[in-house]
């Protein structure tokens, strides 16, 4: 039965979209059927990593939320058009779908003004799991704790919280952990990203584990090469031997290990 994996961070800038795209790609590469939903309707971004622009995009999650189409009409098969970059070429033949959010300014401001029905989002996610026969549905959420993110936390089987090793992320993650426990999320996994290499990674892992009393699936280094690449490809597929990619695969394995 399919699992909903929500990827969340309390603040922006943690590398959440990049991590989500890479994790979903790695899990798809392992032979699983994987969907990615970009519920960050206010500031969508994950589509860029899969080489999508407005022209290629077609229907979006916004269309579904406004009752203009079925959710299955939004799902784009990445494996079918992925070969346009070195890293993504490895996704050809995998079962990986992306459900993008609209990047049209008017549609974004419409959501910001009027909000949307979180129950309809929930129904859409459940339908996706079923019609695409997914093993994993990754949800890339908007940072912070609003109604949509609370919903995605509430319905997730696995919640991945990404934090940077700094004071503000620690504080915000503490609250998010409390919320996840209050909502009985069955599997909580912490991932530290953007750790400066001069720090003792084992020590960071130990501290985070102790502070939140939750497993830490990976401490990933600050990745200048990723920033240098820009958002043109899936980093861990393009540079599989990079330390960041290795740490990321550790997180993917932790997801696959959840019963």
């Amino acid at each position, binding site marked *: 039965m399919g699992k909903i994996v929500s990827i969340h961070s309390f603040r922006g800038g943690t590398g959440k979209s990049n991590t989500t795209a890479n994790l979903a790609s790695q899990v798809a590469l392992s032979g699983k059927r994987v969907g990615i939903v970009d519920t960050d309707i206010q500031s969508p971004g994950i589509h860029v990593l899969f080489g999508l622009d407005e022209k290629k995009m077609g229907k979006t999650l916004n269309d579904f939320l406004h009752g203009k189409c079925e959710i299955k009409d939004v799902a784009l098969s990445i494996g079918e058009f992925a070969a346009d970059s070195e890293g993504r070429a490895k996704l050809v033949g995998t079962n990986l779908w992306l459900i993008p959010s609209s990047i049209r300014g008017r549609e974004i401001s419409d959501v910001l003004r009027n909000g949307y029905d979180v129950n309809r989002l929930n129904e859409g996610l*459940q339908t996706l799991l079923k019609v695409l026969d997914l093993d994993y549905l990754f949800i890339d959420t908007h940072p912070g704790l609003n109604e949509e993110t*609370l919903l995605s936390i*509430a*319905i997730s089987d696995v919640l991945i919280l990404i934090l940077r090793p700094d004071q503000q992320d*620690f504080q915000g993650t503490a609250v998010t952990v409390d919320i996840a426990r*209050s909502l009985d999320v069955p599997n909580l996994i912490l991932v530290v990203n953007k750790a400066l290499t*001069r*720090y*003792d990674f084992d*020590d960071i892992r130990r501290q985070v584990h102790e502070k939140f009393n939750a497993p830490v699936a990976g401490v990933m280094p600050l990745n200048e090469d990723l920033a240098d690449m820009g958002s043109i490809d899936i980093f861990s597929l393009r540079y599989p031997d990079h330390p960041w990619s290795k740490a990321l695969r550790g997180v993917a394995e932790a997801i696959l290990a959840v019963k």
Partner: protein
Amino acid sequence: MPDEMILSLKKASLFRDLPETLLAALAEKVTTERLEPGQALFRKGDAGDALYVIDSGRVKIVSENAKGGQLVLNECGPGDAFGDMSLIDLEPRSASVIAITAAELLQLKRDDFLEVLEAEPSLALDIMRRFSARLRYNTTYIEKAIAWSQRIAEGDYSFADQIKAESEDAVSNEDKASQLLSAFFQLVQGVKGREDDLKQQLQKLTLEIDEVRRKQEFEELTSTDFYANLKAQAAKLRQQRLDNQ
């Protein structure tokens, strides 16, 4: 002159503690060799057949390769001795000796040395004692080096200061064991320095959570009707999904 010769011969560690009578017998055999700057005393691979003590001037001991490249192993000046082993063994020269300045060297040929040795059987015993002592001395340091290597492997550098003190005592050019010690000291300092740098770079983070704020924010977030409704539905939502499959 023979007295000066005796003093010069004593510079060779092989002869350092020999009785005066034996040194006098050897001194009679000593001849003088003069070198112009740049002139070679002998070259690597030549038959080794004499001991030398530098009387004046400076020479360099160099290792030469087939293409004529030179690596200077050491520089020696007045009082320094080399080639004592060649009096005993029949090995060819392991390095070349070339004069840096005009130099005068005292030379003791192996044949002359052996002649004295035949006439004075006690000399043979003395020489054997010296070689034995040198061997024992070197073995001691090899054992120390083994023990230190193990401690370095375990990250224990506490003996480094002790090595430094000992290695400063031993200054003789001929004393290979002390050279090993000083090289060892540099090795330990280098490794320890780099390791300390790394330790310093590997900073520790101290991150704290403000528990009062944590509780406040949690209460704010969970006090809404939306949250109460969501919490009530969370379990139902998951169950609903299981039922759908």
